[in-house]
């Protein structure tokens, strides 16, 4: 026998692999087999759906459009782009406690931060504090790399240039006096952006690093004056700046402006009258955009979104329904091994 094997040098190996006889699991997709799976998935989805829906329902949201398109709107006077340094007040009242921590967002509609050329228009190296790119910004920033006097613009590029510059102050009106509700502007940007990606040049004072550069054309003050009160929130690591630089994926978006988590308001906004003082600077009517402010609290699933809960509920019910359909199919059409007759 051994000798024979040697003689047949060309004989293929008789292994399960080469002979394609590896043991295999052969799942059969047929009605009878998938019914239990469908029921289980359906029930699980309904469970998740209910949990999501309930959670989403518990989230409170308060939204105000302040673009000023409507003549009755408090900010109508500011909507004319010719009016400069316009301030308007938005008054509203809360009936019951707005549970905290309350997040305060500004929102823009019809604003395409995901536009391709817009997205390219920044210089990551410059924003990481590299001084050589202060003098010669990257080509990607063009035409916002140099001003008309050929001075380098820092921070360069269209994203930085178009930074949202409305400012908000919230007052609670208690007995006719305005009490400032403080916004906490720290920790609203990504930790990695604040600590790793964006760096100020290691020159003190910061202002010196910006010698021979100019501020972006649309900006009213240079980058090193974004927050003069706090050096940890100034320059490129200004949190509002970081939030803006992280481009929104969709044309209707909101961005975090601050959180209300200090003092009396740590537990939320108590019922009462409030006034939001808006420094109206950012023009949006030129592209038919809208501006809004949003108060919202968050849960483990983030902001309010009823869609996902509903989706889970619908799909879960569908699975259950389909398992019933399958049961009927199963009863009507059986398989060979189930009744022993091939075909039918």
């Amino acid at each position, binding site marked *: 026998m051994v000798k024979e094997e040697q003689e*047949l040098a*060309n*004989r*293929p190996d*008789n292994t399960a692999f080469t*002979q*394609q006889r590896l*043991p*295999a*699991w*052969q799942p*059969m*997709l*047929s*009605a009878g087999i*998938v019914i239990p799976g469908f029921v289980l*998935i359906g029930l699980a989805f309904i469970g998740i759906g209910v949990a999501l829906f309930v959670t989403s329902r518990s989230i409170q949201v308060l939204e105000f459009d302040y673009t000023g398109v409507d003549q009755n709107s408090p900010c109508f006077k500011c909507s004319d782009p010719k009016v400069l340094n316009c301030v308007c007040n938005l008054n509203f009242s809360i009936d019951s406690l707005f549970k905290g921590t309350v997040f305060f967002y500004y929102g823009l509609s019809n604003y*395409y931060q*995901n*536009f*391709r*050329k*817009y*997205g390219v228009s920044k210089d*990551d190296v410059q924003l*990481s504090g590299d001084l050589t790119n202060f003098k010669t910004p990257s080509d*990607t920033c063009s*035409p916002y790399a140099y001003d008309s006097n050929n001075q380098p613009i820092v921070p360069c590029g*269209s994203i930085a240039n*178009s930074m949202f510059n409305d400012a908000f102050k919230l007052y609670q009106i208690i007995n006719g006096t305005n009490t400032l509700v403080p916004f906490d502007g720290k920790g609203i940007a990504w930790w*990695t952006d604040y600590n790793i*990606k964006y760096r100020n040049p290691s020159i003190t004072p910061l202002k010196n690093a910006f010698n021979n550069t100019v501020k972006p054309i649309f900006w009213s003050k240079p980058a090193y004056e974004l927050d003069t009160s706090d050096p940890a929130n100034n320059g490129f690591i200004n949190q509002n700046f970081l939030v803006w630089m992280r*481009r*929104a*994926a*969709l044309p209707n*978006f*909101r*961005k975090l402006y601050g959180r209300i988590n200090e003092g009396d308001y740590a537990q939320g906004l108590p019922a009462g009258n409030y006034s939001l003082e808006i420094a109206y600077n950012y023009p949006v*009517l*030129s*592209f*038919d955009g809208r501006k809004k402010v949003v108060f919202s609290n968050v849960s483990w*699933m*983030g*902001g309010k*979104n009823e*869609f*996902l809960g509903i*989706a*889970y509920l619908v*799909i879960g019910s*569908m699975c259950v329904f389909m398992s019933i359909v*399958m049961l009927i*199919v*199963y009863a009507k059409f059986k*398989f*060979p*091994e189930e009744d022993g007759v091939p*075909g039918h």
Partner: protein
Amino acid sequence: MTWRSPLALVRDALRGQRAREKDLRNLASNLPYEGLERAKQPNCYFPGNAIKTTKYTLLLFIPMNLFEQFHRLANIYFVGLAILNFVPVVSAFQPEVALIPICVVLSLTALKDASEDFRRYQSDRKLNNTPCLIYSRKEQQFIKRHWKDVRVGDFVKVVCNEIVPADLLLLHTSDPSGVCHIETSNLDGEINLKQRKMMSGDPEFEPESFNSAVVCEKPNNNLNHFKCYVEKPNKEKVGAGIESLLLRGCTVRNTDHAVGFVVYAGHETKAMLNNKGPRYKRSKLERKLNTDVIFCVILLFTMCLIGALGHFLWLQALPGVPPYLVPDGNGHLDSPSLSGFYMFFTMIILLQILIPISLYVSIELVKIGQIFFITNDIDLHDEGTDSRVQCKALNITEDLGQIEYIFSDKTGTLTENKMVFRRCSIMGTEYAHKENAVVIPDRTLLQQISRAESSSSSRNIDPHLDFFLGLAICNTVVVSVATAQRQRVSAPFTATKNRTISEDSVEEEDHVKPPVKIEGSGETNKLHTCSLHAPSQCDKSAMTPDNLSYEAESPDEAALVYAAKAYGFTLLARTPDSVTVRLPSGEDLVFQVLDTLTFDYNRKRMSVLVRHPITKEYVLYTKGADHAIMELLATPYAGIGKQKNIAADTQYHLDGYAKEGLRTLCFTKKVVSDKAYESWSVNRQRALAAIDNREELVMDTAVQLETDLSLLGATGIEDRLQESVPETIMALREAGIQVWVLTGDKTETAVNIGYACRLLEEEDLVINMTESSGGFTCELSPSNLNEVRRFSEDPRNVDTTQNISLVIDGHTLTLALSSDLQKRFVDLAKRCRTVLCCRVTPLQKSRVVTVVREKLNVMTLAVGDGANDVSMIQAADVGIGISGQEGMQAVMASDFAISRFKHLKKLLLVHGHWCYTRLASMIIYFFYKNVAYVNLLFWHQFLCGFSGTAMIDYWLMIFFNLFFTSVPPIMFGIMDKDVSAEMLLGVPELYRTGQGTGEYTFKTFWISMLDAFYQSLVCFFIPYLAYQDSDIDVFTFGTPLNTISFFTILLHLSIEIKAWTVVHWVIMLGSVALYFIVTLAYSAICVTCNPPSNPYWILQRQMADPMFYLLCIITTVVALLPRYMFHVLRNSIAPSPLVKARHLDRLDPSTRDQCMKMWRSFRGIAQVKPSRLSTPPSPTLETPVDIHPHSPTTFDIMWDERHH
């Protein structure tokens, strides 16, 4: 190297070119010029013997390989896109990064090419450095050099068992009779010894004294033809042909040494000119695939157009200039129409992977894998010859799964081609022999012979003796001494040497390796063979008939020689000039051979002209097919008045033989007068020396001599059916394949074999369209005609299935294939269950294949084993060669080579089916995968002003296609197994799923495209709705999309995978692991590496968020639910045969076999009407004998034939 003027170099190059292109070459010996520089040598223009089969050189590899690869349109397309990306106004990605996919694809292919080329380089080097002996004038002897040193005009000495280094004109051999035995197995696989004659008769040959000029034709690749003459200084011309040429690659056997003059060297040798390498055919699936690629291109352009138009409209609708529109360097914006125009190109770049870039590479990889499994199948390995199935065409594996027509040769394909002498008829008397592998002489015939021998005078030889002399002489069988491994057709003398031993002892040597792979004792055996080279040199004691072995080019000849030997007429030796035959009386007769008129397909006969040693008469022995002989018989004359009766009797016997399925041959004798011989001989010499039209002239002289023959008798040789042929044919037929047999044999023989291998069934209606012996009218046998007529009048039988078989012969076929009748013939033939074509020439075989293939537009397969099948094999979509008894020419021309006909069953039914379903599913999946993924980007365009933004990091997109989702489909294409091999073999009907358009149709393509669109919609818009109005940023949005898409695409594949083995699990789970590891690592490393995208820490953050998982789960489920439900419902409500087979597969073997039987019988009854007209019904269907269908075309064509 001395300096030479460039002008002289150009002049030399031109002169060399002219010398090589000339129709006749003048070669001279190199020896007088030895030591001179190369330019002064007479033969310097002809290439040396060093060969180079590599495609590339080390320095030029990159440009040459790139040039080669850019012949592929797809590659140009992708490079064009990558270049387009460098144009700033349209670029969608970082231009450098966009080059990566195409570079990876190109370099993968280049790597594959380079490794193949390196292997060729190594084998070239080994060959070039093989030692050989070249004569040197300085040393006055043959000295040891290498093959690469051999040049045209050299004298080379080859010793026994050495391989010939170049094409040599044989000038001298150690054999006194002037022959050199060679074995051409390296060239054509034939392992019988062949004789080559030396040119000059001078036994004392000295290279230095060779002063003639050798004039030969331009090199060509014909292994069987060579024309040349040697012109001596005195202007005397001596012609020489292939019989004096030792071809490069042959092995010298049984001859001590031989010396030859190099006429062709290196790449000009016939062996190299024949070496074409692997063949590239395009499979049907691939042709279809290309149309789908074009659909993809159209789809891509539509999508890009939508993008461009959308961008234009979006820009137009803007009331002012928003801050997010970036002007160009001069601060002004392009007009909306111009931007839209640019956007079109940006979109092309963005959506380019809609055309699957890696599809072609993947298909190639899949086919390598499929071929690996086919060649490794132990069931397709033949123990007798120790040979596996060989895949010569690398890219038509899936065509094996779509065959609709098989054209088979008979001899050697359906039969063993091991001939056994069964019957003979001598002078009108019939002698039968028992069925036995060894010829047992018939007693009456033996007595007849001994009586004849004692009575016959020297003047008048008894025809019985003449018959056996003819058997022994009229052939080209070479005698060698039997040894263990040189033996081919074993001598059936002793009881031990029966059929099985002869099978085992056939050692087929691999035609690539040098033939030294015999175990230890083999070497001594060979030496032994050598020392006993020529029979005339051996001492007489070695000449006992028992250790003789006959080396025949066709097994018929050997069978006849053995038969003659059984009756005491032993062929002892054959040299070009003489034949030695030992008579029953023990007397050795040496016949002088004056000429041999070799066999050709036009004459269908061969003759040997000898001079009888006793009577001194010139005798011409002729053997051939009966119809080729009968018309040449002499008119009856007074001397042998019985001649006509003999002819009639013999014909009667012949017909009887043919009905039994025996191969028939007629033997005749003719005594040529001295005068006639002399005049003919002059013509013959002239014809042989001619350079132009030599073949025709030689044939004409043969025809001149072969007239007025007198019939001696006829023989019937049995050719046994190969094992499992009927089963194989039944299975193939059940699989919906029509089997045609094309043979050169007589009609009766073919019909008989047809019944034996169940091509024809007893109850079939056989339409016989053969010429009757007299004229050219085609007749339908009256009984059949009546049946058809009766049947046609019966209105009940309109819908019944038909079992018509057609038998047609070469003559009628010529008429049927003429352009006016072609259509009707094909129409009739396609309604027939079987068509048998008899007495067809090789050309007709290929014509039939071509006509059926083109008129019916079906997939054809031709299988054959001999040189006469080559044209048919090449004409069919798939050509299969059977490496059998008749050499390797069929194998060389084939796409696949098998060793037994029965292997066809598993090759087609199992491997064909698997390869086809695997590849078809993989290709559909590939298209789906790319569309499903790219559409994510497309939907996003509606939300970003059609600006060409990608929300997925470009590197991750590249990884996605190159690493994360590329291996699973390849594995799927190589390893998926929808139904087990046992099931496919047990229920051949399953094969039908691949026939015709098969599974990969227009419909399946578009269904999967629609599914891709649906899935991408779900994968995009569920996350969109979930993240609507939130503060999500671009790439944080893209990451879950990428992940969801990844899971959807992989799970889609797992719905399609039918059998999960360990390999499947490892690769699928490995891909998931790879995705997360690579993406996490990339997100952790890349801080600002790939602007504008910003993958830094995104996946990490997402994976910390429960929403991410919830989103992934629901989206994947919704995306796959329809397909899953579709599969489930279809499998439950209307299961396809494949699904049912899969169900049976899950049962335990015994129950399964029972079910399989039930199924087959069940289907057989149920299938009254076949789904397609051309598919024959399952043979289990027993139709009553009297039910025969009417087909109008049957009549039409017959009517026409009858009135021709």
